[in-house]
C-alpha cells in the first residue's frame, strides 16, 4: 500500500508505461489463474510436474529480486534515517529471510508503487513484496503466496462528525477517501462516494479539512497517518485483508518455494519477531500459523467464504480473467474525457488573459510591475506543476479551502499563464517597432496601440505556440488526479484495474486524447491559413 506525495503521480508516463506493459503481457494475463492457484495448493504432491525453471533461474543468479517503493515509508520499506541509502522495514527483513531460505541473497528494486504489477509482468523483478493487498483485480493478474500480514480496513472520521458509523452499508452518500486501486476502494465500491488519493497523508489531511467525510485504509496506514491527528477518531474496522507476495503466474516453481519458505519462517516464529520490531504485530496474525488450502482459496475468492472472514472484495464475481469493458465503463470514459476537456478549456481561458497581462506588464508596465511579472513567469516555469497543484490544494487548505476542480483549474491555469506570457512576449517583440510608432504618431495611446495594432499581429504569430500549449495542457491535465479529480487518465487506470487489462482502456484513453487534440490542430491550422491570407 502506501505511497506518498510528489513523484507519486507522473500518471501520464506511468499510464503509458502500463499500457506498453499491458500489451507485452497479454499472454500472461490470459493464463488461467484458477488452475495455477489450485496447482500451488497441490504443493508436494505434484513432484512429477514439469519444472518451469523459475526457481532454478533465481538460484543460478544468486539473488531474489523483489520490487517495492521506498516512498511508501515506514514500516514497509523505507530509507534508514541512520544510514542514508540503506533501507529498512519489516518487508526488508522478510525479504532477507525468504532469500536465505532459498539459499540466495535478496535484492531490492525500487519501482513506482502503482506500476509494480506491470513491472513484475515485464520481468523487472521476481516478486512484489510491498504491502500489495489481495484484491479481486490483482488475483486475475498475479500469483499470490500465502499472506504474511493480516490487516484491517480501518475507518476514520472527524471527532465532530457523528454520522459516520462502522458499517459499510451506512456510508451511502458520504464522501470516503481512500487510495486508488486499493483493497479499501474495492470494499467501498457501490457503498459510498469514493474520493481517490495517490498518497497516504492526503486523505487524512482532507478529512481534517472537511473535504471528505471519512477515510478507509489499512490499519497500519491509519495508525501512522490518521491516528496522530487529534481531530480524527477511529470509527472501527470494516473488513480484514491480506498482504501477500506476488509473483508471475508462470513462475510456478518459485511460487511454491516461496510459499514453503514463508511457512517455515512463520512456523518458527521469525515473522512474529520481524513484525514486533516495527510494532505491528497483533492478534490478527495468529491465523497465519494455521493457514491452509481452505484459507488460501477463500482469500483468493475461489472457495466458499466463511462469514466474517474475508475473500477479496467483489470475489463473488467468479471470473478473474480479463473481461470486456461494460457499456457503463465506456460512458464513464467519455465522461472522464469531458472532465479533461472542460478542465483544459477553463484552465486555458484563465491562462490566456493572465499570460497576456503578464507579457504586457513585462514589456510596457512600470518597472516594479514588470519585475513582478518577470518573477511570476520564472517561478511558475521553474517549479513543477505537480508541486504547485499540491501546495494550492493541500498546502493552502488551512487558509483557503478550494474545491478540487477549482484548484485544478487555478493550478493549471496559473502555471500555463507563465508559458503563455513568454509566447506572447515573443509575439509582441516580433511585431516591427514601426507598427507601434505609426500607431502612436496617429494619436493613439500606448494601450490603444497595443490593443488595435500590436496584439492582433502578435496573436497571429503566437497562434501555433498557443495551440501547441493547449494540446500539452490537455495531457498535463492528467496530473490533477493527485488532488482527487477523476479525469480521463485516472478513469483509464481505474477501469484497467477493473477489467484486468490495460490494452482496451489504454487504447480508448489514447484515442480520446487524440480525438480531442487532433481536431484542435486542424482548426488551428485553418485559422493560421485564414489569418495568413488576410
Amino acid at each position: 500500500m502506501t505511497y506518498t506525495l510528489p513523484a507519486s503521480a507522473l500518471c501520464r508516463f506511468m499510464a503509458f508505461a502500463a499500457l506498453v506493459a499491458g500489451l507485452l503481457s497479454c499472454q500472461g494475463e490470459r493464463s488461467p489463474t484458477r488452475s495455477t492457484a489450485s496447482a500451488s495448493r497441490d504443493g508436494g504432491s505434484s513432484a512429477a510436474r514439469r519444472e518451469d525453471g523459475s526457481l532454478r533461474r533465481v538460484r543460478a543468479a544468486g539473488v531474489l529480486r523483489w520490487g517495492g517503493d521506498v516512498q511508501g515509508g515506514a514500516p514497509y520499506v523505507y530509507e534508514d534515517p541512520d544510514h542514508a541509502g540503506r533501507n529498512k522495514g519489516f518487508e526488508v527483513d522478510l525479504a532477507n529471510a525468504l532469500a536465505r531460505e532459498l539459499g540466495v541473497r535478496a535484492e531490492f528494486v525500487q519501482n513506482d508503487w502503482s506500476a509494480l504489477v506491470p513491472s513484475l509482468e515485464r520481468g523487472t523483478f521476481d516478486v512484489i513484496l510491498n504491502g500489495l493487498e489481495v484484491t479481486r483485480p490483482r488475483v486475475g493478474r498475479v500469483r499470490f503466496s500465502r499472506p504474511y500480514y493480516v490487516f484491517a480496513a480501518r475507518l476514520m472520521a472527524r471527532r465532530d462528525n457523528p454520522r459516520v458509523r462502522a458499517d459499510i452499508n451506512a456510508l451511502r452518500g458520504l464522501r470516503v477517501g481512500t487510495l486508488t486501486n486499493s483493497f479499501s476502494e474495492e470494499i467501498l465500491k457501490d457503498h459510498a462516494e469514493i474520493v481517490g488519493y495517490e498518497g497516504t497523508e492526503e486523505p487524512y489531511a482532507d478529512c481534517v479539512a472537511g473535504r471528505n467525510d471519512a477515510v478507509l485504509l489499512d490499519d497500519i496506514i491509519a495508525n501512522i497517518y490518521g491516528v496522530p491527528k487529534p481531530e480524527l477518531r477511529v470509527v472501527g474496522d470494516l473488513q480484514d485483508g491480506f498482504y501477500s507476495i506476488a509473483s508471475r503466474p508462470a513462475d510456478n516453481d518459485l511460487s511454491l518455494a516461496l510459499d514453503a519458505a514463508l511457512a517455515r519462517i512463520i512456523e518458527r516464529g521469525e515473522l512474529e519477531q520481524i513484525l514486533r520490531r516495527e510494532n505491528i504485530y497483533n492478534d490478527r496474525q495468529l491465523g497465519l500459523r494455521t493457514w491452509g488450502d481452505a484459507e488460501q482459496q477463500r482469500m483468493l475468492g475461489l472457495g466458499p467464504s466463511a462469514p466474517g472472514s474475508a475473500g477479496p472484495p467483489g470475489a463473488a464475481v467468479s471470473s478473474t480473467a480479463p473481461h470486456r469493458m461494460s457499456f457503463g465503463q465506456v460512458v464513464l470514459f467519455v465522461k472522464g474525457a469531458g472532465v479533461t476537456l472542460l478542465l483544459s478549456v477553463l484552465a486555458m481561458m484563465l491562462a490566456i488573459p493572465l499570460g497576456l497581462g503578464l507579457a504586457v506588464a513585462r514589456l510596457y508596465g512600470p518597472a516594479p510591475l514588470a519585475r513582478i511579472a518577470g518573477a511570476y513567469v520564472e517561478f511558475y516555469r521553474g517549479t513543477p506543476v505537480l508541486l504547485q497543484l499540491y501546495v494550492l490544494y493541500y498546502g493552502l487548505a488551512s487558509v483557503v479551502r478550494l474545491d478540487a476542480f477549482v484548484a485544478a483549474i487555478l493550478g493549471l491555469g496559473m502555471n500555463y499563464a507563465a508559458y503563455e506570457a513568454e509566447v506572447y512576449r515573443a509575439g509582441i517583440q516580433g511585431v516591427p517597432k514601426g507598427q507601434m510608432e505609426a500607431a502612436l504618431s496617429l494619436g493613439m495611446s500606448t494601450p490603444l496601440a497595443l490593443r488595435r495594432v500590436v496584439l492582433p499581429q502578435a496573436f497571429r504569430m503566437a497562434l501555433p505556440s498557443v495551440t501547441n500549449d493547449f494540446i500539452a495542457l490537455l495531457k498535463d491535465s492528467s496530473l490533477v488526479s493527485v488532488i482527487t479529480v477523476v479525469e480521463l487518465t485516472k478513469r483509464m487506470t481505474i477501469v484497467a484495474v477493473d477489467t484486468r487489462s490495460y490494452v482496451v482502456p489504454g487504447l480508448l484513453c489514447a484515442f480520446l486524447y487524440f480525438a480531442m487534440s487532433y481536431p484542435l490542430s486542424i482548426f488551428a491550422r485553418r485559422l493560421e491559413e485564414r489569418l495568413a491570407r488576410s
Partner: protein
Amino acid sequence: MIEVKNLKKVYGDRAVISGVSVSFEKGKVVALIGPSGGGKSTLLRCINGLEDFQGGEIHVGGEVLHPGGYAKNKRALLALRQRVGMVFQTWNLFAHRTATGNIIEAPVHVKGLSVEAATKRARELLERVGLSHRADAYPHEMSGGEQQRVAIARALAMDPEALLLDEPTSALDPERVGEVLDVMRALANDGLTMLVVTHEMKFAREVSHRTLVLHGGAIIEDGPSHDVIERPTHERTKAFLGHTR
C-alpha cells in the same frame, strides 16, 4: 505654428542635437537636408514625441513638450500627435489591415468617427493619392510607392495641421519615387504645412519654400530653398551639395 527652443538630445555621451532653435510657419513647406547622422530625422521625431530629448522645449499649436518622454508629456503628446501627422521612411502600414482599414483606424478609434463617415473620408483620400482602386488591398499586396501613398492618406485622415515626412522616398524603387513626390507636390500646392527630411534636391528646390541644412546636430544653413541650394554659404553645405548633385 511649430517652435523648437534650444533643443538638446544626447545618446549616451554623444550629442545628436546640440541646442537647436527654429520655428516653422503655417502653410509653408520646409526641407531638412544634410549628411546622415546630422540630426534631421531625430529633430523630426522629437517634434512629435517619438524621441525623448534632454533639454529645451517644443511648442506645437498650444501644446508644449518637455524632456521626460511619454511619462512626463502624456497629455500633450496625445493632443499634439493628433495635430501633426507623420510619414515614415518604411511606410509602417498596419500589416493586418487593408488600405481603407489603415486609413480609418485612427479616425474611428481616436477621434470617435463612425466607421461609415471614416470610410467615406478614406475613399476621398485614396482618390486624392490616386489609389481608389487599391481600397481593399493589404499592405503586402501593394508596391512601396502605393504603400507610401496610403501612409500619407492615413496621416491626412486625422486632418493634421502639419505633416512630418521622414525620408518618404528613400526606401522606394527609383521608378516609384515620382508618384510619391507628385502627391507631396499636390499637398504643398493645397497649402499644407510640411516638414520633409529628404535627399531629393529637386523636390527641395522646386517645392519647398525653405531649406534647413543640419550637420553635427546643429542648423548650419537656413534660408529660402533656392538660395540655400544654389548659393550655399557654409563649406559643409557646399561639400554636401557637391556630393548629391
